[in-house]
Each structure stands twice: as structure tokens, then as C-alpha cells.
């Protein structure tokens, strides 16, 4: 029984330590991740629900395919991946530590034959003198050696960047650090959204599940505006925000410009420019009607979708209005409105009137000239809101990963032994990686070594 248990523990340890499991997990993670890029994730669009068969929909939902990166099986894969990473590292680390802390000071015969990088010179002086000058040579050319006497031979061992063997474990650790950062973020952070109408302030934001999250302070939207390129493409969405504590602006957080790629952070909560629109509810639009024959212009106020009857019985209906007409009427810009005008006993006419192009308004050769004067409607700004205290842990993990990868791929543990025997001295070299580059360094040292007269 005891042996069975032991072998079970042994078996499972071996299983979690195996590189084959690593390969299986990496390939499984790669393959399963594809699902979430093909199927919609989160809230399903109604068009999608309409076109998929109910059975399929049910099976996919059961399998968690519509939120697959948070499904039990994907999270389990990540846990097994972490476990595999930890056990592999734990299994190999002691070995590597031993390699670094207890270097091979004495080169055995078999090791000497295994290394292809070696040279030999004849030495005639006494051992002590050889030892002194060769130790100085190695110290000057490579790094100071440790000298060991063994079987009547002197072994001079020197090494560089022994710790570079730890690079790969730094990378493994960094993955775990990133996971920890992600877990901190998901436990104590949140993502939300808020829209603020110009001139108003908010003190809560809406979380992902529709819940209201109190901020503990207020955010006031002073102004929102959009700039356009000459082509009509948007150039900049800009909110001017002020943070209020107890109704008073916080110094340094007053009239802050927030644009895409330039968020505002206060007390660990960050606000990102995300969308905008017109808070049109209840707002009025102003139209000036001027008789072409002269006379006093008439100013009218109208709601979107509503109609007003003028003194002469003409009915004016405001179909829609925009504060930037460029995308609807190429060549024009600024505020404009589309109105429907019905003269008494005539058929309705629909046309666009501009604020900044009065000559266009006049060109429409009619008895009445209509001009758009703008609106008292205010804009609202849509802001993404995020609090993520784990993000610094994630960046720490990322930094570790880059440093670890650099060490693991571009640095190597280089070792040189000098073995002094009676009558001759031999030099041997070995590098943990990139043998070709080390060979050049070794050759240069060996060249000088062979010119030594001792």
C-alpha cells in the first residue's frame, strides 16, 4: 500500500513536471483560444442569436463558449499551466543552483575529452611560478580563477555570467507574477462607464453588470468638443473635466483636457475618452425666417421632430439637426438642420439649412429664406472608467519577462579551465549557449595563451 501511494505521488509529480505536458498545454491553449476569436463573446448580438440554431446555442452556452476566457475549463487549463510551470521550475532549480554555487573546479579526464575547445602549451618553470603567471593571465583576459590542487595537477577555474542559467526561471516566475496581477485586478478593481452632460457632474459610474459604483468624489464635465481634419475625418474628441471634492474643485484637477490616448487619473481611478453625443432631450433649435422681399425676420424655436406654424400659415418641421454636417453634406461644415416646409396649399419641401453658410440658405430661390441658428442642446461625453490596483504587478511581471528573456536568449554561462601539469598547461572552454560566439572569444584568449613563455 505504502509503495503504491509513493508511486502515485511520484507519478503525479512526474506528470506535472514533464515537458510533454508543457507542450500539450501550450498547444491546447493556442487551439482553444481560437474559439473566442470566432464566436461572439459576452452579450450576444440579437442578429447572431437569430441565425444560430437553438441546439447549437444551448450547447455552446453550456460549454461556456460565449465567455470562454472565463470558462471553468479555460481557467483550469491556466491553473494546470501554472502548476506545470512551478513544478518544472522547482524540479530543475536545485540542480541549476548547485551548478552555480558549486562549480566544477576540477576538470576530470572525461570532461576534458568532452570539450572541443582546448589548447595546449609547454611549460618549463616550477608549478608555483606557472600558477602565478597563468592565474594573472586568466584574470586579465577573462576573470579571476579559483585554484584547486588535484592529483598533482593545478586546476584554474574561472567563469562569467553563471547566473545567466537562471534566465529561463525568471521568465517562468514573470508569468506567475502577471497572473497574480491579473487576479488582484479582477478581485479589487472594476471597469465601468459613465456619460456626463456638459455642465453637470456625476459621482457614480455604471459597472459591467449594470450596478452603480460610487466614486467617492464628483466629476464635472465643463465642455465637450470635436475637431475634424479637412477631409472630414475626426481629429480630436476633447472633454474638459474637473474633479470635485465636497463640491469644490480639487487643485490640479480643474479644467483637465481628456482626449483619446490622454486619460485623467484621480485616486487610482482613470477616466478614458470613449464616446460622445448630443443630449438632445428637451433641447430647442433656433431658426430665423427672413422674407426675401424684405421685412422683419422672424425667429422661431422648435424641438427636433416637432413643427411650428408661422404667421402666414407656413408650417416648418425640424426633421433633424447636427452640430457637424460634414459627413452628411460634403463640402460644408458646422451646425445644420434638415427641415420640412409646407407653404399654405403647397406640397411639403425638404431641405438643409446651415448656420455658417447664409449664402447657401439664400440661394434656394423662395419667398422665405430659412437660416439655422443652432441649439441650446448640450453635448455629453462618454467615459470608460477603470480601477485596477493590480496593473503595477502586471507591469512588474512584464519587465521581469523581458529581462528574463534577454538573459535566457542572449547571455551565456562561460567557463574556462586551465590545467597545469608537469611540463604542460592546457586550456579548456565551454559556454551554456551560443557556442559559436564564445568560440571566437576563446580562440582570441587561446591565441595569447599559446604565445606565453613560461
Amino acid at each position, binding site marked *: 500500500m505504502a509503495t503504491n501511494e509513493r508511486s502515485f505521488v511520484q507519478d503525479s509529480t512526474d506528470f506535472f513536471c514533464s*515537458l*510533454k505536458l*508543457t*507542450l500539450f498545454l*501550450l*498547444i491546447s*491553449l*493556442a487551439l482553444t*483560444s*481560437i474559439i*473566442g*476569436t*470566432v464566436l461572439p*463573446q459576452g452579450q450576444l448580438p440579437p442578429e447572431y442569436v437569430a441565425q444560430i440554431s437553438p441546439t447549437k446555442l444551448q450547447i455552446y452556452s453550456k460549454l461556456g463558449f460565449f465567455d470562454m*476566457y472565463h470558462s471553468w475549463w479555460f481557467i483550469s487549463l491556466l491553473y494546470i499551466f501554472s502548476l506545470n510551470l512551478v513544478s518544472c521550475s522547482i524540479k530543475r532549480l536545485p540542480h541549476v543552483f548547485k551548478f552555480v554555487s558549486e562549480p566544477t573546479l576540477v576538470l576530470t579526464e572525461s570532461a576534458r575529452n568532452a570539450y572541443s575547445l582546448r589548447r595546449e602549451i609547454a611549460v618549463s618553470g616550477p608549478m608555483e611560478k606557472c600558477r602565478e603567471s597563468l592565474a594573472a593571465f586568466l584574470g586579465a583576459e577573462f576573470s579571476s580563477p579559483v585554484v584547486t590542487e588535484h592529483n598533482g595537477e593545478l586546476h584554474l577555474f574561472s567563469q562569467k555570467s553563471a547566473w545567466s542559467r537562471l534566465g529561463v526561471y525568471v521568465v517562468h516566475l514573470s508569468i506567475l507574477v502577471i497572473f497574480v496581477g*491579473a487576479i488582484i485586478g479582477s478581485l479589487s478593481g472594476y*471597469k465601468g462607464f459613465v456619460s456626463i452632460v456638459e455642465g453637470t457632474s456625476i459621482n457614480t459610474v455604471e459597472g459591467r453588470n449594470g450596478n452603480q459604483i460610487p466614486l467617492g468624489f464628483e466629476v464635472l464635465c465643463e465642455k465637450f468638443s470635436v475637431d475634424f*481634419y479637412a*477631409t472630414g*475625418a*475626426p*481629429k*480630436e*474628441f476633447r472633454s474638459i473635466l474637473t474633479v470635485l471634492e465636497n463640491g469644490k474643485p480639487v487643485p490640479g484637477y480643474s479644467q483637465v483636457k481628456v*482626449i*483619446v*490616448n490622454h*486619460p485623467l487619473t484621480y485616486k487610482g481611478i*482613470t477616466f*478614458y475618452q*470613449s464616446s460622445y453625443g448630443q443630449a438632445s432631450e428637451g433641447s430647442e433649435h433656433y431658426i430665423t425666417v427672413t422674407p426675401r422681399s424684405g421685412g422683419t425676420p422672424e425667429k422661431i424655436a422648435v424641438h427636433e421632430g416637432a413643427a411650428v406654424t408661422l404667421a402666414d400659415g407656413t408650417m416648418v418641421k425640424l426633421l433633424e439637426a447636427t452640430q457637424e454636417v460634414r459627413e452628411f453634406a460634403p463640402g460644408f461644415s458646422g451646425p445644420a438642420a434638415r427641415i420640412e416646409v409646407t407653404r399654405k396649399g403647397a406640397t411639403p419641401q425638404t431641405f438643409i439649412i446651415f448656420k455658417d453658410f447664409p449664402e447657401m440658405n439664400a440661394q434656394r430661390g423662395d419667398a422665405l429664406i430659412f437660416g439655422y441658428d443652432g441649439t441650446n442642446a448640450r453635448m455629453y461625453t462618454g467615459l*470608460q*472608467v*477603470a480601477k*485596477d490596483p493590480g*496593473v503595477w504587478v*502586471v*507591469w512588474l511581471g*512584464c519587465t521581469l*519577462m*523581458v529581462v528574463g*528573456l*534577454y538573459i535566457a*536568449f542572449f547571455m551565456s554561462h562561460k567557463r574556462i579551465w586551465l590545467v597545469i601539469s608537469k611540463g604542460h598547461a592546457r586550456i579548456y572552454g565551454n559556454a551554456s549557449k551560443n557556442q559559436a560566439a564564445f568560440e571566437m572569444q576563446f580562440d582570441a584568449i587561446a591565441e595569447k595563451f599559446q604565445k606565453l613563455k613560461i
Partner: protein
Amino acid sequence: MTSSMFFNVATIAYLISMIVFFAFLAGRNKTIGFAGSLIAYAGLAVHTLAIGLRWKESYDMGVGHAPMSNLYESIVFFAWTIVLLFAYIDLKYKYRIIGAFVIPFALLGMAWAQLGMNTGIEPLVPALQSNWLLYHVITCFLGYAAFAVACGISIMYLIKAALEGNDSSAQAGGLMSMFPPLKVLDDLNYRAIMIGFPLLTLGIITGAAWANYAWGTYWSWDPKETWSLIVWFVYAAFLHARFTRGWVGKRAAWLSVIGFAATIFCYLGVNLFLSGLHSYGGSKM
């Protein structure tokens, strides 16, 4: 626009370089191989000039930005990084026959960009107005280019392994004599991925940092993000496969080819077939 003309010159240079490399493959004349490399370098120089000019032209137009803002500009930059990486491998490891399998990738990209795409310079949409654009795009595409080179080398490996497998006695015969030995190809494949993997990692990290800065989430499982992670997983598997018996050689070469296919899907497929946050990378053809 003068940059456009220079891009055409570079494309033609890559075409000639490829043909010369094929001639090198058939004729085994070292001078021809050297000429192939020289023409590719000349193309690279003109290509570099053209990218610089396009950058300047965008400033002259008043919409100044690095030429990496849409599909056309990114593919032109991708081709540039591929030839750059080829030059590095050629100069460092002296196996220029690799050019016959790597330059075609650059040529394909340039030809597609020059013939099939709108080459106009457009102003930068708000989402891309950030210095992160430069860091993110450069690291990603250098990584992609290293994977392209690795893929070319792996294809050579698979061809050579298949032909030699059939007839082991003809080891040094015919075309195959021009190919580096299998062991060298395997090693070069590994070295190319050793360059690409850290760059891809940096590309993903700079992307995450930018996303966090612009949108408030460093990771949102957007298709582009997910596919970059898939690519990362495949090459991580490749790196671990090298230490596992039964996975070295052919299987590792296949992993490298699959990795590059995933890379291309991550780069193009996601924009063309899937929807997501990277929509500005989509083509306007």
C-alpha cells in the same frame, strides 16, 4: 509622390534579387549568390529611403505621422523588416541561399501593397495618436519578420529532409548541395525564433501598455490580442520542443511553419475576417 516611385524601385529590386537567388540555387555560382544579396541590399536602401520620404511627405501634407498607420503602410514596413532581418542573418551566418526562401515573402508583400492597395497618406485617427504606435508597431513587425525568416528556413529544412529521407545516399547531390546541412538549418531556425520571440513578447507588452493607457484595460481578449497570444503559445511550444526528444527536427520545423501561418492570420486574417478593436488596420482597397 516620389516615395511611391521609390517603393516601386524597391519592389523591382526584390523581384530581381529573388530571380538571381533562384539562379544561384540552380547554378551554384558564388558570384551569382553575392549579386543576389547585393541587389536585395540595394532594394533595402531604396526601401528605407522611400519610408523616410513618405514620413516627410505626411508632414508636408500637414498630417505628419510615422508611416505605420494603415494596412498599406504596415505591409510595406513588414517587407522592410523581413529584408532587414535577412541582411542580418546573411551577414552574420553567411548562408545567403536562405534569400531564395525569404526574399519572396518581402516581394509578395510589396507587390500586393503596390498593386492592390490605396497608397494615399491619410491623417491619423484619434485612437492612433500616440507614441506607443511607433514602439508597438516596430517591435511587432521585427518579431513577425524574424518568424518569416524562420519559416523560410524551416521550409528549406523540410524540403531537404524529405529529399534526403528518400535517398540517403544522394546526400550531397543536386540542388540540395546548396542547402546548408540539416543541423545548421535547425540551428538557424532556432536562432531566428530566438530573435522573434522576445520581440513578439515586447510587441504584446507594448500593445498591452498602450491599451491600458488608452482604454483602461491591458487585456480584453480582443481577437487581435488573442491571436498574438496564440502565436506566442506556438513559439513557446517550439522553444520547449527543442528540449524534448521526438520533437526536434521535422516537428520543430513544422511548428515554425505553423507559427508563421498563425502570425500571418494574426496580422491579416484578424482584420479581414474578424471584427475587433484593431479595425483601423483593415484595408481600404
